[in-house]
């Protein structure tokens, strides 16, 4: 077995928290540092792959720090690991550092708010299959809805740091300005239609924002914004590619838009999963069988989480 092969194997590793920063109401960005074998394994972590974090030993915040809407749910025991994709992964020397984003939505993520620099977490990864960008694409359109932005940020970071030369445009949508999980100062820039989100701007990627209520960027669905852009674009379908992550309804719309225009498209799917490593068979995604009306279930953890949009049945 080659060195390459050995170092990219999945496994259970220890990650050390480097920071845990609140970036908006209900959103945090968590920095993790890997050393030793974990650094080698996570150096090969591809955009769109995921990892399983063990939060079961992490303490609850003090009662007054628990958001009101989670007061009842927060006390539940956390048994299973939680899957996360990463917004960034950087290998430097013997260390690999990663950043992930989480919304405070339940008993596990409310516990994660108490993590601080130096804390240790057990993490299983890298898991699943990430985005694969074929040769010859001129423009990559990233479409992120709600919390579905980390793997797109990671993809933008990876492609620009590789000097791929591909033009990248990020479409980011949310219900309202406050629900956009970005560190970019929305107040300063929300007046402009095509403002830049810091996470994408730092890799030179233009970002276009849409909110359902118009409190930031374009008013309406992110997919409507995408459609408008496509209508004005002079690119041919085979020069373009779309990668999307977000709520299932948004993914279904992106999939339809791609199919109607014959644009290559990959979707990062989300399913409830227990193990993330192919044991429990919970995270089934219904997929088409080419040349047949039959469908089959493919496991999100092993075949995905990134699927070709043509495969997925919505």
């Amino acid at each position, binding site marked *: 077995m080659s060195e390459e092969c050995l170092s990219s194997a999945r496994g259970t590793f220890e990650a050390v928290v480097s920071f845990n920063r609140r970036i908006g109401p209900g959103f945090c960005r968590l920095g993790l540092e890997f050393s030793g074998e974990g650094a080698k394994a996570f150096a090969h972590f591809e955009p769109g792959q995921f990892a399983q974090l063990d939060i079961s030993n992490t303490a609850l915040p003090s009662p007054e720090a628990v958001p009101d809407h989670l007061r009842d749910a927060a006390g539940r*025991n956390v048994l*299973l690991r939680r899957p996360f994709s990463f917004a960034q992964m950087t290998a430097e020397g013997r260390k690999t550092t990663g950043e992930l984003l989480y919304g405070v939505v339940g008993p596990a993520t409310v516990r994660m708010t108490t993590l601080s620099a130096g804390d240790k977490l057990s993490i299983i990864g890298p898991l699943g299959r990430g985005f694969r960008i074929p040769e010859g694409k001129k423009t990559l359109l990233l479409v992120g809805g709600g919390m579905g932005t980390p793997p797109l940020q990671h993809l933008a970071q990876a492609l620009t740091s590789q000097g791929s030369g591909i033009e990248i445009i990020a479409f980011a949508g949310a219900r309202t300005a406050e629900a956009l999980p970005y560190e970019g100062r929305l107040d300063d820039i929300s007046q402009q239609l095509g403002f830049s989100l810091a996470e994408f701007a730092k890799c030179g990627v233009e970002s276009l924002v849409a909110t359902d209520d118009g409190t930031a960027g374009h008013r309406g669905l992110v997919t409507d914004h995408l459609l408008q852009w496509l209508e004005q674009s002079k690119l041919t379908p085979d020069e373009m590619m779309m990668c999307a992550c977000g709520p299932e309804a948004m993914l279904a719309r992106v999939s339809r838009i791609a199919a109607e225009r014959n644009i290559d498209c990959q979707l990062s799917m989300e*399913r*409830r999963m227990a193990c993330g490593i192919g044991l*429990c068979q919970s995270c089934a995604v*219904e997929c088409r069988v080419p040349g047949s009306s039959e469908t089959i279930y493919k496991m999100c953890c092993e075949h995905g989480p990134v699927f070709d949009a043509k495969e997925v049945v919505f």
Partner: protein
Amino acid sequence: MGDNIDISVDFAGLKLVNPVFTVSGTCGYADELSDFMDVNCLGGFITKSITLAPRKGNATPRIVETDSGMLNAIGLANVGLEKFIEEKLPVLENFSPAVFVNVAGQTIEEYVAVTERLSSERAIAGFELNISCPNVKKGGISFGRDPEQVAGITSAVKKAAGEKVLMVKLSPAVTDISVIAAAAVEAGADALSLVNTFTAMVIDIETRKPVLANRTGGLSGPAIKPIAVYLVNKVYNEVAKKRDIPLLGGGGIRTALDAIEFIIAGASGVGIGTTNFIEPDCAAKIIDGIRDYCVRNDITNIKELTGSLLE
């Protein structure tokens, strides 16, 4: 330390290096755990349920977490007998743990066909008869609730199993588990495994709908452990001990301490399930922990511990 300690067990004529099994539906078909641990350290290994034809399984959501547990309703999704033989069996041939194939079906004929086809395979030590799956409409638990049906299917599959060991997996969702256990043993079961999951439900109070697409699922994990320990002890006292039938006990085992409880209650082997999802190398740690317990308690042979509960 511990060199003079024997943690091997005799399990229905099989010599196992230790009592620890990974159980059906939590450890794949063969080598899926091998990225995380040396699967050859196990005493026994039980495959995912195999049915005659491939099964797609249920719609999603198929799982939901509960307080200290989880519900699953996978619906016996599996690759089917032929693909299992083609792709998975060759991997199992190099396994040192005793391999049990978990057999499921909708009719007795289907159980018999799967068992017969595999009964001459060298890689397989035995079969685990799944008559306790709560998540399928036909078969599964419907065979496991009535003692006459249990006897019928057990004796039919026993014939099909030939020389191989037949273990029957019991559901806890019955009025008296000992009646079912006795029926299985009288009909030829060489071993019993218990418990399968408990039928359960989680409701989303915002939508007022069940969370699982299947409505109900099987509860597993630490939440069920004390009930499982009780049921193992009951079946040991009322059925297994006097007939010298080994029990594979499990339900919510997370650590060696949990495993030891089951052994004291009457189990010869212990099955690790849900914890494989969380700590995929937990079985190896539990094996070490069992050895440590023996050292601390001057137990030279783990067999002394089975059924050693003091009243």
